[in-house]
């Protein structure tokens, strides 16, 4: 069983933001993930590695309730996902920001409206002076001030990733999950994105990044304490310390 937080291993952490207990996931008759146990403490920074097709994306989807485990228990903020309805999962998801490699947006809406989408769907004000100021600040933070009125298809890969990150954090979620966030962008842009993730972690956010990019992991380790998990043979393992 893997228990992770910045202070090191403990017993079962009652304040774990994400907790997996003997989780398995099967699809089409085959088991993709098996016997996964993990406790992610608040404020921790985790990387998830593994070969292509090992199930990293599936693992992340289990961590934000997009998929239901076929065995075991997934607890988000101490609530078992299995017993929740879709609306309850939707409310829980507002506490988890997600960034995908193929960031999906509403292509007919400008970047600012896409970034503000989590506020809109949760019924929060997006047109008041305060909300607009926050949005501008967020755009500046991800370096997209000049691209706020652009439509998503007009953005470059790096800009899309940063817009997706801005959208993921606008609700000030407790957890940020990123699935291969640097997969489609160059080294410089990936470093910029990492800087943003590190900043978020220093603000107390829990970060879990699935990536192939060992350089990204090394760069992160140089800035904040991180843990590296690896999916191998459908199981979750601690990766080697040489990373």
């Amino acid at each position: 069983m893997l228990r992770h937080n910045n202070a090191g291993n403990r017993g079962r952490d009652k304040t774990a933001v994400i907790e997996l207990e003997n989780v398995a996931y099967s699809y089409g008759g085959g088991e993709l993930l098996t016997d996964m146990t993990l406790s992610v403490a608040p404020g921790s920074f985790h990387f998830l590695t593994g070969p292509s097709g090992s199930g990293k994306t599936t693992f992340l989807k289990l961590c934000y309730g997009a998929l239901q485990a076929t065995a075991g228990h997934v607890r988000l903020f101490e609530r078992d996902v299995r017993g929740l309805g879709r609306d309850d999962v939707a409310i829980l998801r507002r506490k988890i920001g997600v960034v995908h490699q193929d960031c999906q947006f509403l292509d007919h809406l400008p970047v600012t409206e896409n970034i503000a989408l989590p506020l809109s769907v949760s019924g929060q004000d997006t047109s008041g002076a305060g909300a607009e100021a926050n949005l501008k600040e967020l755009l500046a933070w991800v370096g997209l001030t000049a691209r706020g009125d652009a439509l998503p298809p007009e953005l470059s890969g790096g800009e899309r990733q940063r817009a997706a990150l801005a959208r993921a954090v606008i609700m000030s979620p407790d957890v940020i999950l990123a699935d291969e966030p640097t997969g489609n962008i160059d080294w410089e842009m990936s470093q910029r994105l990492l800087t943003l993730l590190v900043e978020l972690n220093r603000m107390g956010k829990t970060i879990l990044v699935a990536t192939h990019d060992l350089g990204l992991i090394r760069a992160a380790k140089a800035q904040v304490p991180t843990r590296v998990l690896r999916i191998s043979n459908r199981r979750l393992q601690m990766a080697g310390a040489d990373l």
Partner: protein
Amino acid sequence: MSLDLRAAAKMLQFDEKADRVVPPTGFTARLTVFSSFAMAFLAVFALALSLAAGRVAERWGDELAQSSTLRISAPAGEGVTQTEAALRVLRTTPGIVDARALTIDEQRALLTPWFGADIPIEDLPLPQLIDITETDEGYDAAGLRLRLAAEAPAAVLDDHARWRRPLIEAASRLRILGWASILLIATASAAMVTLAANAALAANAQVIAVLRLVGAKDTYIARAFVRRFALRSLTGAAFGTLVGIVALVLIPSRGDSAGFLTDLSIQGWGWVWVILIPPLSGLVAFIATRFAARRVLEELA
């Protein structure tokens, strides 16, 4: 499907941002508006047909409840005798409330529209008419004819109820057919809106995925589609109803001659039904889209 009124009301609330999350869908939008337009237009005619058939059935029914007529064309000298005999028979016949021989003046009034007021009716060999009022159950016409043949052989019973009854039945069935058509129109509208909503939902699977990713509840996602289709259907049906009314008005007036086809109009309380067509169309679209949205969102979960 249970209809939670609070959730339904929430879905109809105007929310510009919620409406904007779904991209404009030109084809399904036009399809929904057009089908609602056509269905409302047809509904107006089906309604007019049904209401007109109802009026005809009612009118003929009222006339049925009035009198039958006995005509006595007796040879000279036997008229009074046979009239008195016929009246005796009629007054003792079960199912007849009253039987009364028309006076000369009343017979003159009946002929005035054709021959004028100055007709010398006393000089004409006119038959004596007897007005018969039936009970609701009516009388046995065949038995009465047999008795009259024995007592007043010159009497001819004009039992107009017997030929009007099938017409009333036909009119009643036409009325039922009209309402059945309206029901079919509503069902077909629901089916078309469901198909269009399904197409729109399927075409926007990515939009739904993004909305779910950022924490949107199913109600929020469904609202954008439900409001859109309900409003399109309402708009199309309003235009269809308006054009249907104009088309009804353009049917030539019946003038003095009563005719079923020229009586195809909306009168009195019938207008309430016509006014209800657009909101009912919107309601049908609302229910159909909500059902489709729930099903598709369930499948995409």
